[in-house]
């Protein structure tokens, strides 16, 4: 057996990230060599040019892995859900 190891990851989008992408989630196969949030962003940008515009200014994005805020260097590990959104503005 030489199957490439991967795991299913749900990506959810909020606010203008959701609006610009035109959808609120994606389900992707996360290849084993994609280890961090930053690497995952690179991977999905390479898969679909639609992400280029939205993810152009990465400074404006925030991330949560399984509902916890994380940075770009966070390990995806066995996480099930990555959220991508602008800085929060509640209250």
């Amino acid at each position, binding site marked *: 057996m030489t199957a490439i190891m991967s795991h299913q990851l749900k990506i959810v989008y909020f606010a203008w990230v959701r609006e610009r992408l035109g959808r609120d989630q994606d389900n992707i196969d996360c290849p084993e060599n994609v280890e961090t949030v930053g690497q995952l962003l690179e991977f999905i940008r390479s898969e679909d040019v639609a992400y280029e515009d939205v993810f152009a200014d990465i400074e404006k994005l925030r991330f*949560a892995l399984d509902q916890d805020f994380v940075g770009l260097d966070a390990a995806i590990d066995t996480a099930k859900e990555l959220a991508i959104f*602008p*800085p929060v503005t509640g209250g």
Partner: protein
Amino acid sequence: MISITVQENDFDSGGEINRLSALGGGAISSFVGQVRGDEQLQALELEHYPAMTENALQKIADKASQQWVMHGITIIHRVGRLQVGEQIVLVCTCSDHRQAAIAACSYIMDQLKTVAPFWKKEIFQDGTENWVKERQSDLDAAKSW
């Protein structure tokens, strides 16, 4: 007693204050945020991340409980479309001492502004829309604790 609610419906600030008063702490501080009628604003659209929101608010309340001796904390945050003048958020804290109640209420609001997954879209009378940007003053306030 920590109570966290995310809802579309309006809330009754007085009822929530009375509920915390009944705990007998003696000092109840509250904050209500509402949609301010700036410029040509008609409404706000409040979006959130349902799987994360209540947990994020719970963590903020837990941290406040560790920092100050509290009898109770209530956080209610509305989502959906809110017209100018409508209430958005209530934070209510009850303690034996006024400084603790007021400080905890202020702390919770500051943290909520920067770590609770809510996003506001402004909808103007001419139909244009604008996602609210984060404010440096909010980031500074959250870090000041």
